C-alpha cells in the first residue's frame, strides 16, 4: 500500500482499519503528552487553589468527581453514536469503538460514584442516599456492567456488536434522565452550576482547575479509547491469522 492511500480525506476513509491504525499511531503520542500536561496543570491548580469557606478542603474532591461524571456520560454518548454507526451505516470501526469504550465508561462511572460517596459523607452525612441523580447514575453503572457481561458472553464479534448496539440505544433513555434529574426531582444533589443560562455560578478560583481537569479527563478518555481500539483491531487480526494458520495446517496435513 503506497503512502498516499493512507491519507484520510473523509470520515468514511476511517473505515479502513489500516488507515485508522496509521493515523492513530501518529496521534496517540501527542494526545498522551497533552493528557500529561493538562493533568499536571490541573492538579497543580486543584491542589493550590483556596479551599471553600464552607466545605474546606473537601471541595477538591469536585475536581475529580465532576469531570469523571461528565466523562461517564460522554462515553455513553460516544457509544450511542458508535451503535448508530453499527446499525445504520455498518461502519466497520463503529463496533470496535463501542466495545473499546465500555470498560472505560464503566471505570469513569465507578470513579464518579466512589468520589461522590467520599464527598457525600462529610457534606451530607451519609455515604449514599437514594437521590434521583445518584440513582440514575447508579443505573448507568449497571447498564455498563450489563453491556460488558453481554459482550463477554458472545463469541462472534459482529453479532456481539449488533446486539450490544441495540441495547446501547435502548439504554440511551437514561442519559437525559441523568442530566435533568436534578431539575425534575429537586432533591439533595445540587443542580447544574457550570453550564447554565446567565453564566456559571462557580467562582473563577474553582472554575479554572475544574475546566483544566475536565480537559485532562477528556484527553485521557481519547488516549485510552484510541489505545483500546488499536488493541481490539490488532486482537481481531491475530485471531483471524490464527484461524488462517490453523486452516492452512489442516489442508496441508490432511491430504498428505
Amino acid at each position: 500500500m503506497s503512502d498516499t492511500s493512507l491519507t484520510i480525506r473523509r470520515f468514511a476513509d476511517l473505515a479502513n482499519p489500516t488507515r485508522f491504525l496509521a493515523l492513530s499511531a501518529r496521534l496517540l503520542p501527542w494526545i498522551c503528552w497533552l493528557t500529561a500536561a493538562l493533568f499536571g496543570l490541573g492538579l497543580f491548580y486543584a491542589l493550590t487553589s483556596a479551599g471553600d469557606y464552607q466545605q474546606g478542603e473537601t471541595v477538591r474532591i469536585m475536581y475529580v468527581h465532576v469531570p469523571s461524571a461528565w466523562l461517564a456520560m460522554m462515553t455513553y454518548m460516544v457509544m450511542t453514536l458508535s451503535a448508530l454507526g453499527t446499525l445504520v451505516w455498518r461502519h466497520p470501526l463503529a463496533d470496535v469503538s463501542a466495545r473499546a469504550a465500555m470498560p472505560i465508561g464503566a471505570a469513569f462511572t465507578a470513579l464518579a460514584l466512589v468520589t461522590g460517596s467520599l464527598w457525600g459523607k462529610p457534606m451530607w452525612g451519609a455515604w449514599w442516599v437514594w437521590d434521583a441523580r445518584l440513582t440514575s447514575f447508579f443505573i448507568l453503572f449497571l447498564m455498563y456492567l450489563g453491556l460488558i457481561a453481554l459482550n463477554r458472553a458472545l463469541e462472534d464479534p459482529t453479532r456481539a456488536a449488533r446486539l450490544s448496539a441495540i441495547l446501547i440505544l435502548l439504554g440511551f433513555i437514561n442519559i437525559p434522565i441523568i442530566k435533568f434529574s436534578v431539575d425534575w426531582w429537586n432533591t439533595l444533589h445540587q443542580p447544574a452550576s457550570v453550564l447554565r443560562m446567565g453564566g456559571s455560578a462557580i467562582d473563577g478560583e474553582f472554575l479554572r482547575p475544574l475546566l483544566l481537569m475536565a480537559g485532562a479527563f477528556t484527553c485521557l478518555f481519547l488516549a485510552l479509547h484510541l489505545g483500546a481500539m488499536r488493541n481490539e483491531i490488532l486482537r481481531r487480526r491475530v485471531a483471524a491469522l490464527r484461524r488462517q494458520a490453523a486452516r492452512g495446517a489442516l489442508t496441508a496435513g490432511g491430504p498428505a
Partner: protein
Amino acid sequence: MRRLLLRDLALAFRAGGGGLTGLLFFLAVVAIVPFGIGPDVKLLARIGPAILWIGALLAALLGLDRLFQAEREDGTLDLLMMQETPLSLIVLVKCMAHWVSSGLILALSVPVFGLLLNLGPLAIGATMLTLFVGTPALTLIGAGAAAVTVALPRGGLLVSVLVLPLAIPVLIFGVSATQAAIEAPAAFLTPFLILIALNLLFAVLGPLAAATALRSLED
C-alpha cells in the same frame, strides 16, 4: 395474530407452562418477606405494596428468557420471521400473551396476597391498578433483552442483569403511585400518568428492539 396469541396462552397455561409457576413464585416471595423482616403488622402494611411490586418484577423476569427460546429451538421462530406481518407486531403479540400469563394474573391475585401482608382495601385496589398498568412495560422491556440473549446457552441470568436497570423507573413510579394513592396529600395522578407513559414508550421501543435483535441473529 389471534391464533398466535391463543397458541401462546395455551402453551403458558397447560401443563408445564410457565404461567402458574410465576404465580407460585410470587406467592413464595410474598411469604418469605415476613420471615425476613419479622411479622410486624404495621410495618408490613406500610411496605406491602412495594413488596408486591418487587415480587411482580421478579416473577415477570422468571419466564422472560423462555419468551423466544423455545420457538428458536423447534424452528417456529424462523417460520414466524418469514411471515408477511412485521416481526415487531409478532413480538408485540407474544408480549401480550406473556403479560396475560404473568402480569395480569399477578395483578388479579393481589387481593389474596394483600391479605397476607395486612393491606387495606384501598391499598389493595391501588396496587392492583398500578400493577395492571405497569407490568406490561416490564414484559416489553424484557422482550428486548430476551431477544438479545436468545442465542446464548445461559441467557436467563443475563436477561435479569439487562432488564433490571431499565425496569427500575417502572418500579419507582409504580410504587410511588401506589403510595400516593394510600397517603392522601401526595398527588396520585402524576406518577400514575408517568407509569402509563413509560408503558407506551416501551410498547414502541421494546418490540422494535426485539425484532431488530432477532433479525440480526439470522444474518
